[in-house]
């Protein structure tokens, strides 16, 4: 019997969702289906699925966060506390071994900082439907979120059509909320 091809294709990005007050976490990924976006939260033994149908997606919000800067500061701190003692030992002992150890540690953390910087600004991404606003933990970098959005946009437009900014601005509920 011929196997039916799987309808899902992988959408970039991966992340974790903290559950149970941060004690536990699930791995999150996004997949593109024929008519919906599938968010998969995986634990070691099971997977949970959330489906966002293209016809129901109302908005996609990318919010920049300061996590990249915090991570860079943390990595810099690790560089100082690992390479620092070797540097101090080199200046007191003048042994080349300490110099190489200091350079090795410093270089390792420097590469980590460089990698973290090159991955792009960090963000939180939310998807909104009429029934819910859901965070997408797999899209935690602005470039990855924009790439995913670029793949999603034509599919959503194909399902919903396009609206102009004037249409959004003149929507009766927007006028109503503005006057509140």
């Amino acid at each position, binding site marked *: 019997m011929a196997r039916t091809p799987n309808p899902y294709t992988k959408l970039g990005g991966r992340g974790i969702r903290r559950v149970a007050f941060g004690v536990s976490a699930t791995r999150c990924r996004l997949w593109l289906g024929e008519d919906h976006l*599938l968010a*998969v939260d995986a634990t070691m033994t*099971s997977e*949970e*699925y959330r489906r966002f149908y293209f016809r129901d997606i109302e*908005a996609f*919000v990318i919010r920049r966060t300061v996590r990249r800067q915090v991570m860079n500061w943390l990595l810099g701190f690790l560089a100082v506390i690992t390479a620092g003692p070797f540097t101090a030992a080199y200046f007191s002992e003048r042994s080349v071994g300490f110099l190489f150890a200091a350079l090795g540690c410093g270089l390792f953390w420097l590469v980590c900082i460089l990698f973290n910087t090159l991955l792009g600004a960090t963000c939180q991404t939310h998807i909104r439907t009429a029934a819910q606003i859901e965070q997408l933990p797999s899209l935690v970098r602005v470039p990855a979120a924009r790439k995913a959005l670029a793949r999603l946009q034509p599919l959503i437009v194909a399902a919903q059509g396009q*609206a102009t900014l004037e249409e959004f601005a003149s929507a009766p*509920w927007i006028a109503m909320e503005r006057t509140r």
Partner: protein
Amino acid sequence: MAPRLVACTKCSTPLPPALYNTGELRPCPSCRVGLQIEVFPAVLRPPGPGSVGEKVVMDGEATCFFHATKRAVVPCDSCGRFLCAVCDVEMNGEHLCSTCIESGRKKGRMQKLESKRTLYDNLALAMALIPMIIVWPTIITAPITLYIAIRHWNAPSSVVPRTRWRFVVAIILALLQMGGWVAVFCGVLFSKSHH
């Protein structure tokens, strides 16, 4: 009416349409955090009024299977029962009753309704790998791993593409562990018989 303006995901301030679909990060007017908002026409759709189902007014009119006083509007595409507007659930162009949806979900025939699946391949692999840390439990876990892998070989796995390599690795590890224990016992028996 519930707020329909897209709000900042940090400070919950409703955002003006001028910030929509700009293609770049723009500061939130309230908390100044960078936001990129892409809004789609679904946001313009007014919320549906919902339906209560029409009452039967004439004798001989088809009534709903679940509500004898409501007028039937459509038959269930799966079981053929007549349904009123309340009981009719439209899914992928099909009209279904709640009973068929529930039974389809339980039997795993409606993949689009599934919200959770057990990953038996991951379970088997974990069962094969984790006890190896302290070796001794493998005498019990190796046959269990083998059982899980064989029993669930054809069970539905993830809904997204996934191969069976975890099952294969788990089976190989379980067989190696069992082989190792057989070798240990044979060695013990052999040395006892020589003494």
